[in-house]
C-alpha cells in the first residue's frame, strides 16, 4: 500500500498544529510557565506557545498551549483489529439464526462487578433498544436474558451455564484506575476455570472498549460507542457459524 504520512492540520497542510492543556502541581510563576513550555517541547512540539497560564490556588497552575507536532504517522501501516463479519439487519439476523442454528440463540448479558451503568447493556438488549435500533429482546430468534447491574462474575457464569447460553455480553463503563480490566480478566478467568471459555462467545462493550482491547483480554469481540443490537447479533451468529464449521 502507498505510504500515507499525515500530521495534524491547523490551517495549512502539515503545519502540525495541536492544542494542549494540563495542570502542573506548582504555583504559577515564570519558571513553571517555562516548565510547561518544555513539557510541550519534550512531547515533540515545535515552537510551543503557552497561550494561557493561570494560578489555581493551593499550589496548582493551569496551562493552555499550542504547538506544532514534529511527529507524523503513516496511516498505510495501521491495521485496526476488527471483528470480521457482515452487519445484517434484524430480519437478516433472525433468518440466519433460524437457518444455521435451527433454534433460538441464547444470550446472557450483564453489567458486572461493581459497575452499575446499565444504560449501555440495556441499549443492546432491551426490547426498546436505542436510537431507533431495537434491542435483542425484540429478536424472535434470540432468547435474551439481561441480568442488569452489579452482577458478580460468578453469578453471571452460573446463569450462563443454567441457561445453556451461546453468548455472554458484558458491559463495563467505569474505567477509573483500570477497574474494568480487572473485572473483565476476572470474568474470563472464571469461565476458563469452569471449562466454559471455549464453548461460549464472549463479548464486551462500553464507551472505552475497542475490539483491540477486547482481543487483548481474550474476549471474542469488543464494541464501543454507537454500537447497536444488530452489530452484536450479526457478530455472534457469524462467530457461531465459523466455530461450527471449524
Amino acid at each position, binding site marked *: 500500500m502507498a505510504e500515507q504520512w499525515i500530521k495534524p492540520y491547523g490551517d495549512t497542510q502539515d503545519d502540525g498544529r495541536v492544542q494542549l492543556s494540563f*495542570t502542573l502541581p506548582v504555583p504559577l510563576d515564570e519558571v513553571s510557565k517555562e516548565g510547561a513550555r518544555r513539557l510541550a517541547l519534550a512531547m515533540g512540539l515545535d515552537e510551543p506557545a503557552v497561550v494561557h497560564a493561570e494560578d*489555581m490556588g*493551593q499550589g*496548582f497552575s493551569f496551562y493552555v498551549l499550542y504547538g506544532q507536532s514534529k511527529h507524523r504517522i503513516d496511516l498505510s501501516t495501521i491495521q485496526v483489529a476488527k471483528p470480521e463479519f457482515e452487519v445484517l439487519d434484524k430480519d437478516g439476523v433472525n433468518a440466519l439464526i433460524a437457518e444455521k442454528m435451527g433454534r433460538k440463540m441464547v444470550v446472557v448479558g450483564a453489567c458486572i462487578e461493581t459497575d*452499575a451503568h*446499565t444504560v449501555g447493556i440495556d441499549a443492546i438488549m432491551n426490547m426498546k433498544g436505542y436510537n431507533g435500533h431495537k434491542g435483542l429482546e425484540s429478536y424472535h430468534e434470540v432468547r435474551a436474558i439481561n441480568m442488569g447491574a*452489579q452482577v458478580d462474575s460468578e453469578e453471571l457464569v452460573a446463569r450462563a451455564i443454567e441457561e445453556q447460553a451461546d453468548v455472554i455480553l458484558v458491559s463495563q463503563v467505569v474505567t*477509573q484506575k483500570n477497574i474494568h480490566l480487572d473485572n473483565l480478566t476476572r470474568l474470563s478467568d472464571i469461565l476458563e476455570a469452569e471449562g466454559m471459555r471455549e464453548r461460549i462467545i464472549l463479548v464486551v462493550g462500553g464507551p472505552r472498549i475497542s475490539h483491540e482491547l477486547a482481543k487483548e483480554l481474550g474476549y471474542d469481540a469488543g464494541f464501543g460507542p454507537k454500537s447497536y443490537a444488530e452489530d452484536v447479533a450479526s457478530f455472534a451468529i457469524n462467530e457461531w457459524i465459523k466455530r461450527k464449521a471449524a
Partner: protein
Amino acid sequence: MAHLQLDQARIDRARDSARRIAGRVFDDMDRSTTTTVERATLRLMGVDGVDENQVPLPNRVVDHLLERGLLNRGAALAVAAAMNEQGWTAQQVAEAVAAGRLVLDGGDDTAARNTADALAAQSCEHIATQRAQRAALIGNSGEAPQPWLYLIVATGNIYEDIKQARAAAEQGADIVAVIRSTGQSLLDYVPYGATTEGFGGTYATQENFRLMRAALDEVGAKVGRYIRLTNYCSGLCMPEIAAMGAIERLDMMLNDSMYGIIFRDINMQRTFIDQFFSRMINGYAGIIINTGEDNYLTTADAVDAAHTVLASQMINEQFAYLSGLVPEQMGLGHAFEINPELENGFLWELAHAQLVRQVFPEASLKYMPPTKHMTGNIFKGHVQDALFNMVSTVTKQNIHLLGMMTEAIHTPFIQDRFLAIQNARYVFGTMRDLHSEIEFKSGGLIEQRAQAVLAETESMLAEIKRTATGGKGLDGVIAKAPGYYNPFPKRMLQGGARHG
C-alpha cells in the same frame, strides 16, 4: 420577574396525594427495624472500631444479637443492660462481644432504658454542639450567596481528595462532595479509617469525614466562607452514614427515599425504614438532604419523564416532613438533562426548573448539570454547562452542581473543576439580575409546558397505590418485637433545625 402562572389548586391536590402515600408507607414501616438502623443506634451510643478482620464492631454486635434472636427488641437495650451489668462503656461491651468474651441477652429493665437514654442524650448533645459550631463558623466567616457552587472530588484517595477540595474552595466552591467508591452502597458495613483505594470515588468512613471536615474548616477560614461538606447517605448503610455525618458535622447528605430501590435494587422496606431513621438524624443535625430525582433522567428521557421528577419531589417532601425536616433542609433534586439536539429544549428546561422553583418556594433546590448528553467533545460540553448555569441563575436555584466538560470521560481532573467554576462565576455574574428583568410570556410555550408537567404529576400521584417487595437487603429487615426500644427518635424528632 421570571414567573409562571400555575394552578395552585392542582399543586395542593398533588401534595395531598403525596402526603397520603408517604403517611401510609410510614405507618407500615414503623413496625420494623433493620440491621443498619440498629448499628446506627450503636454508633450514636459510641460504638466504633473494627475487629481483626476489619469488620466494624457495630456489625459484630448486631450480628450477635441477630443470631441470638434478640435484635427485634433493639440493640440499644441489650448493650445498655450489659453496660450496667459490667460497668463498662458501650465500646467496651462491643469489644468484649467481638472478642467472644461476652454474650448479650435481652435486658429490658428500666435501668437499661435509663442508660440508653442517658447515652442518647449525650449523643444528641454532641450533635447539637456540632450544629451550633456550624452556625458559629458561618457567623464568623460568612457564607456564599446562592446558588451555592457544589463540586465533587473523586480521586479514591482521601488525601488527594483533600488537596483537590482545598484548591476547589480557593477557586470558589461553596460545597464539596466526596464521591463514594463504586460499590460501597451495596456493602452491608461501613469501612473504617482513612482510605486511599477507592474506584470512581473514596470510601465514606468516619475518619475520612473527619479529615475532610478539618481541611474544609481550615480553608474556609482562609477564604472567609464556610465550606459545606457532603456525602452519600444511601445504600445498605444509610442510617449509619447519617450517624457518622451528624457526629462529624457534615452539612448535606445525598439521601433519597427511593434511589436505593430504583437504582441499586435495594429492597423497598429496607430502604424506607432506613430512610426514616437516617432522615431523622439528618434533620436533627441540621443537615440538608439532597434527593436524587435527577437520576431518573439519566435513564429516562428528560422531557417524557419530567413529571416523575416532580412527583418524586413531592413524595420526598412529605417523607422529609415526617422525619422532622424543615423546608430549607430539603435539597430536592432535578437536572438539566434535555437532549441538546432538541429544538427549543432550553425553553422546556426553563419551564421545568421554574416550575420546581414555584412549587417548592422555600426548599433548597438542588439542580444537577447535564450528564447523559455530555460526550467526549469537551468544548461543546462546556457550552452545555454554560446554559445549565444560566437556567440555574434565572430560576434562582439554591444548590448548583457544577457541570464538568469531561463528564463523559473521567471523574473530574483538577482543571476540569477549575474551568467549571470559572464558567459558573462568569454566567452568574454577567446575568446577576436577569431573573428579575425578564418575564415569561403569559400563556406562552414555556408556561404551557410547565402547566402540562404539573397536570401529569397530579394524575400520576393520584394513581399511585401500593408497592412490591424484593431486592437486596431484605434479610436485614426485622419486625420489631413488643418492647422494642430505641432512645433516639423521641429526642431527635423534636429538636434539631426545626427549633434551633
